[in-house]
Structure formats: structure tokens, C-alpha cells
């Protein structure tokens, strides 16, 4: 029999979290040296499907168990979806060999949670502001006096100029915000992709995963609110288990 592993937590007791796992499997703990692995009994094969609803439910369950474990144990080391350990002896041996590392990691993550901070710029609004830019105003004035073909080329130049200015400005702001957000915790860059649907028409300029101490969350929220009122859109998502900060374990 194999074990689907959700997360590790600091606990020495045998716990039963109920049938909350993927496909309603019973989630329980296997404790070794004061560290508990939250698992369900699994077949020796990964969960795979092309049925998106099914996969979505699996992912939701994975997340749900990690949330439930966080609630019960405080801090957890979350594992990625579909981590399946071959057998009980293998699991226990691995936990014994890595007890020290797990303890250290759990210690570092204690009283902290992960938050996603995404900052979006309203590019259309910025474009409108750019229309007052001296360089652009001059080009536009010149354009009105030119012939059609030449005017077209000037328009292209204006478009390029605006595009470049948006890039430069967004980078400048992104660096500034990044520097300031760093004062609230440990910060990692994410790619500027995959915004949720309602932000699709906005330009994402910063996408950070932040490990923030519980007592600093309010201050960070206050700072983000200031950015949000200053012509940007801020997403402050969380709290999540420290998915981005648990590192790689051998």
C-alpha cells in the first residue's frame, strides 16, 4: 500500500482528520520523532485524468486537507499535488532520516503564512495621462501639419513611445513596491502571468509570494491599501500554507 502525502506537521499524536481527502479518503497522521505526516492510503499510482472537473476537485481537496491541518497543527510543510510514497517502511525511514531538517523548517515557518501580492497598473489610464506628455504633445502638433503617409509614421512613433514609457514606469514602480514590501517578510518573484479573470484587462507589474509573520500582516495590508488608492490595483491573497517557502527536500 502507498501513501498520498499532503503535508508534515509538528505533532506526536495519532490524529484522524476524517474523510476529507481526495475522493473522500480518510486522512490521518503517521507520527515519527514528533513529526506527523498527513496521508491517505493510496494505490501505487498517481492521480491522473483529463476530466477537468475531477482534477479541480482533487486540487480543492488537496488544499482543503492542508488548510485543515494548518488549523489543527499551526504550521505545516505542504507537499505538491500527487506526492505518493511507496510504502509505510519507506515513509517512516525517510521521516527518521530527515527529522532534524523537518524540525528546523517547521521552526522557521512558525507563526508565518504565505500571501500572494499582485499589483496591476491601469494601462489605459496611464495612456491618457501620457497624452499630456510634452514630447508626445509636440509630436502630435507636428503630425497635424504633415501629409497622410508621414502622419501615419509619426503616429506609430507616438504609439511606440507610449509603450516604452509604460514599460519604464511600470518597472520603476514595481521595483519601488518590491523594495517596500520586503520590509514585511521574505519575498519571492513569480512570473507575470495567469491573473484571475477579473484582472485580465489590466497590466500586471508585480507578482510576489510573501512569507509574512502573523503580526505583520495588518501592517502589510495597510501599506498595500495605500498603493491601491494610488492608481494601482492590488490583490492581496491568502493566507496560504507556505507552498513557496518550504524548499526542496531530498
Amino acid at each position, binding site marked *: 500500500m502507498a501513501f498520498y502525502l499532503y503535508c508534515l506537521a509538528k505533532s506526536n499524536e495519532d490524529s484522524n482528520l476524517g474523510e476529507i481527502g481526495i475522493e473522500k479518503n480518510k486522512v490521518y497522521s503517521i507520527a515519527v520523532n514528533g513529526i506527523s505526516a498527513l496521508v491517505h492510503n493510496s494505490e501505487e499510482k498517481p492521480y491522473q485524468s483529463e476530466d477537468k472537473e475531477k482534477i*479541480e476537485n482533487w*486540487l480543492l481537496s488537496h488544499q482543503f486537507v492542508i488548510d485543515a491541518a494548518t488549523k489543527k497543527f499551526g504550521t505545516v510543510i*505542504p507537499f505538491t499535488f500527487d*506526492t505518493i510514497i511507496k510504502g509505510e517502511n519507506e515513509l517512516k525511514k525517510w521521516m527518521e532520516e530527515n527529522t532534524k531538517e523537518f524540525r528546523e523548517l517547521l521552526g522557521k515557518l512558525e507563526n508565518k503564512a504565505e*500571501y500572494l501580492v499582485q499589483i496591476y497598473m491601469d494601462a489605459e489610464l496611464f495612456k491618457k495621462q501620457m497624452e499630456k506628455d510634452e514630447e508626445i504633445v509636440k509630436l502630435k502638433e507636428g503630425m497635424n501639419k504633415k501629409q497622410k503617409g508621414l502622419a501615419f509614421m509619426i503616429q506609430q512613433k507616438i504609439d511606440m513611445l507610449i509603450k516604452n514609457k509604460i514599460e519604464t514606469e511600470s518597472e520603476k514602480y514595481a521595483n519601488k513596491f518590491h523594495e517596500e514590501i520586503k520590509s514585511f517578510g521574505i519575498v519571492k518573484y513569480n512570473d507575470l502571468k495567469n*491573473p*484571475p479573470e477579473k484582472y485580465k484587462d489590466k497590466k500586471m507589474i508585480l507578482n510576489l509570494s510573501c512569507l509574512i509573520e502573523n503580526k505583520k500582516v495588518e501592517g502589510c495590508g495597510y501599506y498595500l491599501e495605500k498603493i491601491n488608492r494610488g492608481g494601482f490595483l492590488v490583490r492581496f491573497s491568502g493566507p496560504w*500554507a507556505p507552498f*513557496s517557502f518550504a524548499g526542496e527536500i531530498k
Partner: protein
Amino acid sequence: MRPVRDGGLVDLLDTALDKGILLNADIIITVAEVPLIGICLRAALASIETMLDYGVFQEDDPMIKGLNIKNI
């Protein structure tokens, strides 16, 4: 502002599927084909064209070739 979980599936993909500890050990069941799950799910979120635009994957990506995209 207070943190909220409003991103739905996108945030789930960014956490549970893309992150979390990856075990590099011989004690785990081989999950070599697991990225397919990610691709299916991401495809459910956006059309393939949009995904290509965003550079999430390339047209000649072997993982795409292995999928019957029409059925997604």
C-alpha cells in the same frame, strides 16, 4: 486591506500544483506524466491560443503534442 482568497482555481494552480515541496527521492511513485494534469487544468482556464500568447507553453511543446487538445 485584508488578505482574501478570491482567485479561485488560478491561485490553487499557483500553489498546490506548481509549488509545495517536490520530493526528489526514490521512495515516491514515479509521477513523470503528472505535468499533464497541469496542462489540462490550465487549458480549462484559458483557450490554447491565449496560453500560447502568454507563453505558458510553446506550440511544439512535447506535452502539448501528447494531448488531444480538441477534447479539452
